[in-house]
Structure formats: C-alpha cells, structure tokens
C-alpha cells in the first residue's frame, strides 16, 4: 500500500491494495460485531456494533472505493455532506430526545414512551396462541419471541406514566405540572377522594379527563391499561390520600 504517498494521485483507480486481505478483515470484523452483544455489557456492544461499523465503512471507502487515492476535492465534498448530517442531528436531536423541559412538555412522546411498543406484540401473542393450539410450528417460534406476561406493577406504572404531572407523592406537583392549566389532580387531598368513586377514576384513567368533563390534558390510557390494571392504579394512588 505504498500508493499512500503518491503525490499526484491522478490514477485513483490504478492502485490496488490486497483486496482479498481487506475482504477477510471485513469478515473478521463482522464476526466480532455479531459476538459483541453476547457479553451482555452495554459499552462493549456499543463499540463492537458502531465502532466496528465505522472501521468497516472506512476500509470499504478507502480501499474498495479508492478514496485514499482520490483527489482532495472529493474528500472535502463527502466530508461536507457528513458535516451537514451531524448539523441536522445536533439541531433537531434535543427536541426529539427530550420529552419535557422548562415550560414545555411533549405529551404525545411521553405517552408513547409509557405505552411502550404494545399493539403488535399483543397481536403476535394472540396469533401465536391460536397457532399454538393447532400445533403450528410457526406459532411456537412466535411464542418464543413474544415477551413474557408479567404481574402488573401499579407502583412502577405510576412512576413511569403518572409521576411527570401528578408528582412522585401524588400531590399534583410533578415537573410537567408547571406547564399545565388546569393543574393535575392532587391525590393527597381528602376532598378529591370525597367526591369521586373508584369507577369514576378508572374511567378517567382509561378514557381521559375529557370523558368526564375534566381537563383534556389528562390523556386516555386505555390502550395501555385494561380495566383491572386501571383499578390497581386507583388502589395505588389511594395510598397518597392523607
């Protein structure tokens, strides 16, 4: 690979590194990137996945695409494109990656995060059960893929979904509350409990505040929690009552 020092570089295509050697290095790197997650350590996977992707891309770019022997203007042109990509990321990412800040809250994103990736998984489970019943081989594969159903953790759900506005102690003082008008309900307030039944609260949780003539800022969580889970949530928020 002595072509590296070629001052003119006009014959970009005329340089031939040892392609076979580079190909085998690429395959070796591929194996490492697949084995990386086997260790189960986050930062190792990060390096074996994305670090190696960068190395592989660079090997292809320099040797197969002959960029290392190409005119400098080409490198500048490609670099400009890459810089533009990073500019886009830097400019937009803060709004997309954060779901709340001082004076603003992205309800839809928070709700999506709390709701998780629900629907298709449920479909898969239902389909898998049906296929399983008739002994379908595909059904068994899908069963293995479907997540294990876990006991409902009302406290955990409250922490993920409700805390943002209703606050960790249920006093309606979560970080999201500042931006809301009317303010979120205060579960510590005895008066709140005096005027509401469990069934009413289950309805609010599942169908949203607007369903009972209250604030539409309280989203409907029916897609996330079924009747029994909403009841468990009501039981949990009752523990905030003073």
């Amino acid at each position, binding site marked *: 690979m002595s072509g590296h020092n070629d001052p003119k570089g006009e014959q970009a295509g005329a340089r031939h590194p040892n392609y076979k050697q580079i190909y085998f290095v690429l395959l070796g790197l591929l194996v490492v990137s697949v084995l990386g997650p086997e260790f189960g350590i986050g930062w190792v996977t990060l390096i074996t996945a994305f670090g190696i*992707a960068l190395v592989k891309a660079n090997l292809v770019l320099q040797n197969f695409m002959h960029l290392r022997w190409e005119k400098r203007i*080409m490198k500048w042109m490609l670099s400009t494109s890459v810089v533009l990509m990073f500019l*886009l990321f830097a400019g937009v990412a803060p709004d997309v990656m954060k779901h709340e800040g001082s004076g603003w809250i992205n309800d839809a994103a928070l709700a999506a995060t709390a709701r998780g990736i629900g629907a298709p998984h449920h479909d898969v489970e239902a389909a898998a059960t049906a296929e399983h019943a008739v002994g379908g081989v595909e059904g068994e594969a899908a069963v293995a893929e479907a997540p294990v159903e876990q006991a409902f953790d009302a406290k955990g759900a409250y922490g993920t979904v409700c805390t943002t506005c209703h606050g960790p102690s249920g006093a309606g003082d979560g970080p999201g509350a500042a931006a809301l008008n009317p303010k979120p309900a205060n579960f510590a307030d005895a008066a709140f409990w005096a005027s509401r039944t469990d069934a009413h609260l289950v309805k609010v949780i599942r169908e949203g505040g607007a369903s009972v003539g209250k604030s539409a800022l309280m989203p409907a969580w029916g897609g996330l929690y079924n009747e029994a889970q909403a009841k468990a949530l009501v039981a949990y928020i009752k523990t905030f009552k003073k």
Partner: protein
Amino acid sequence: MQKPIATTRSATGIPTGRLAIWWVLASEVVIFGGLLASYLMFRLGHPEWANAAAVTNTYIGAFNTFVLLTSSFTAVLAHQAAENGDGKLAAKYLTMTIAGALIFLVVKGFEWSYKISHGYTITSNGFWSFYYTAAGLHAAHVIAGAVIMAFIAADAAKGRELHRVELIGIYWHFVDVVWIFLFPLLYIAK
C-alpha cells in the same frame, strides 16, 4: 461513435463519470444520513423501542451483511479486471455481484413477509416505520444497482465501456457502506 466533449474533459482532474458518481454519493450521504440521524435521535428518546428492536434477528442481518461484503469484493475484482482490459472477466465478476444482490433481496423478502405476517408493519409504531423505510430505501438502491450493473456487464463482456465498471463499483460499495451502518442500528443495538 464520436464521444461528446464532456466525457473527455475534466476541470477537476477527475474523470467526468467518476466525478458524477461521487456527486451522487455526496447527495446520498445527506439522504441516508438524514434518515439514520433521525432514527438515532428517536431511538435514544424512546427507550421502549428496544422491545421492537428485540424482534429483529441479528443472524439474518449478519448473513445479509456477509452477502453484501462479498458482493463488494467481487465488484472491486471486476474493477481490477476492467483495468487490465479483461472485459469478460469483469463481466463475470459483475454477474457474481448481481447474484449477491439477488440473494440479499430474497433474504430480505422472506424476513419482511415473516414480520408482516406476524403483525409488524410499517404503521405499527415509530420503530417499524423507520425499519421499513430505511431498509426499503436501501433495498431500492440494491435493485437499481443490480439493474444498472446488468447493462454494464453486458457491455463489458463485449469489451465496451470498461470505465463504467469502476463507476458502478463505487456506487455499489456505497450501498454496502449504508448497510454496514443499518446492520448495527436495526439488528444489533437492542
């Protein structure tokens, strides 16, 4: 046939065809780069996407990476053959590259139909939207590359337009590079 003047002259010192292909790729970097950067920021902002990412099969992704790396290898061998003036050999290597493209697409086809039949479609949620859009846009590039390569291979076999072998090769390696990034983004990071 008399060549138009543009193919014989170049202000940059880079052959016009190669300048053009690099220009295309610089635009492609913005297209794929914008898409992947958007995917990345949404993925980082939505930890729940991990549940969906867990459904993708790393080994299928790895196999397709292997196929594309191999097809890049044969593409660069075609380039080498074309430079040695051996059009027939170049055509042979290009045909192998096209075969790689077809294998890649067939694997992708099975993968997608399995996923779609299990309820994971482009409208399921954000993760699957990105999954099908990014991989779909990439697959469209694979198809376009394979078709163009077939024309170039037919010419090369007759010893014509051998410089185009390098040009389609540069494009093909880029398609490979895009997949090199898509693979960890969609298949490894769970």
